[in-house]
């Protein structure tokens, strides 16, 4: 019965979306789609009697989430605010400083950048067990993993951005007899901003991945990664899903804030301008 209802709702919602899409409702359509998935999920789990240790129903997840808000908040603070954000800030600032040096010295450009490009493609999250051994179980080791993970993509993007000035723009600064620092702050850094934001966004997701995965290698009894492992051990899948909701919310929030900052600071860039029209 519920399975039939699920099928019916799926078809009906899709038909509705076809009509809404033709009307160009850009916000409503994805919302209905997301809602439909959750409703169908609920009906299928209930209708087919799926075991809760395999897939809990959304209502169960929501109830668990509501019941465990203090625990989840503590996990959020431990993993996201301390581990991910702490490492993110350190890694990003370090990458910015190194990028400016690389941009200044051709030797580093030729010697360091091929290595950095190579490193950016590696599964760096594998350093997690080493960092846990060096810096202990608490958030410091997670931040260390995050620092290494975000450093290389951030460096590669920023260096590309600092090089993204035209010969004419550089000549213009020369005709003014501008110093290196004046050129850096008035031309290169503003011109690099779109690239820097691209790096910041990539690094944002990586920082969450690093902080959570590093907890799989050892953590105190708090943190999103720890909670996932512990709840799996007790086969309480509803709690695992609740943690995943927290991680998803944190990721979207982080990304959303960066997008807002990007709009405010690079409003002049063609990619941002076309969105407004």
């Amino acid at each position, binding site marked *: 019965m519920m399975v039939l209802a699920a099928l019916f709702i799926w078809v009906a919602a899709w038909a509705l979306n076809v009509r809404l899409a033709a009307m160009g409702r850009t916000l409503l359509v994805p919302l209905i789609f997301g809602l439909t998935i959750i409703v169908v999920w609920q009906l299928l789990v209930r209708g087919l009697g799926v075991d809760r240790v395999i897939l809990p129903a959304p209502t169960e997840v929501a109830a668990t989430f509501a019941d465990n808000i203090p625990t989840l908040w503590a996990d959020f603070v431990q993993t996201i605010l301390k581990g991910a954000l702490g490492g993110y800030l350190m890694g990003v600032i370090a990458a910015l400083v190194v990028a400016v040096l690389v941009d200044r010295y051709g030797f580093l450009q030729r010697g360091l950048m091929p290595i950095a490009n190579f490193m950016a493609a590696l599964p760096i999250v594998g350093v997690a067990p080493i960092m846990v051994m060096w810096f202990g179980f608490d958030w410091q080791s997670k931040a260390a993993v995050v620092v290494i993970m975000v450093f290389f993509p951030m460096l590669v993007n920023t260096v590309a951005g600092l090089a993204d000035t035209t010969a004419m*723009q550089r000549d*213009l600064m020369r*005709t*003014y007899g501008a110093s290196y620092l004046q050129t850096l702050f*008035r031309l290169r850094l*503003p011109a690099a*901003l779109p690239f820097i934001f691209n790096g910041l966004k990539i690094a944002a997701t990586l920082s969450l991945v690093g902080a959570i995965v590093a907890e799989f290698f050892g953590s105190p009894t708090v943190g999103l990664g720890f909670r996932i492992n512990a709840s799996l051990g007790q086969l309480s899948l509803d709690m695992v899903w609740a943690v995943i909701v927290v991680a998803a919310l944190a990721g979207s929030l982080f990304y959303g804030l960066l997008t807002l900052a990007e709009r405010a600071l690079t409003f002049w860039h063609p990619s941002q301008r076309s969105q407004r029209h």
Partner: protein
Amino acid sequence: MDTEQDKNKMREQSVVKASALDLTFQTNDGPVHALKDVNLEIGKGEFVSFIGPSGCGKTTFLRCIAGLEQPTGGEISVNGMTPDEARKARAYGYVFQAAGLYPWRTIGGNIKLPLEIMGFSKAEQNERVTRVLELVDLAGFEKKYPWQLSGGMQQRASIARALAFDADILLMDEPFGALDEIVRDHLNEQLLALWARTEKTIGFVTHSIPEAVYLSTKIVVMSPRPGRITDVIDSPLPKERPLDIRDSPEFIEIAHRVRDGLRAGHIDE
């Protein structure tokens, strides 16, 4: 400026002086002689156009004056200094082929850019922005962003930027090359008016014969491989030049001479 005395006076006040200037680029296909044995003097207050086909070294010569290229031979001085010293003394404003305004700064902010670098006070910066925007007929556009303006307005703003710090030389590298004919006529007229008001020395690179003849007091015809000067024409046209002067016999005669010079340079090859 026909008498011997006048000419002497001009020589005393020569702003740019190049003698036996050579510039050779080393490329993978062997050396390229961008400039060979170039001799030229530009007097104070002159409007000098450089015209010739691409590769004749007109832009390279302008960049040598600006200290953006280093000659490989010969002498060049600007206001009695080396071009590098002149650049550091902020002796000239440079206008490029494209406006090259920074998109993250407003029009006012773009004009302030050289003023900030040169350390003018805030009050002075604001006062100068207002003044030069009036000069190029852009008063009231201070708070707009470059991408909100038309191509012609952007180029006027870039001229304002070059005027802002009161250098007495203005170097312009095909500033109107990317604009359409109608806008270009209008800007040519405005440029002449501006030149009359400010009495600056202007070096102007173009590949349009009418533009060169209409604007200049002196036309330097150049030809490529190697880049060199084939003719220097002193224009007899009066300082007051309405647009329809382009239909006068004098104008057409000079245009002919320029065209002949260009053709001669071409046959030389």
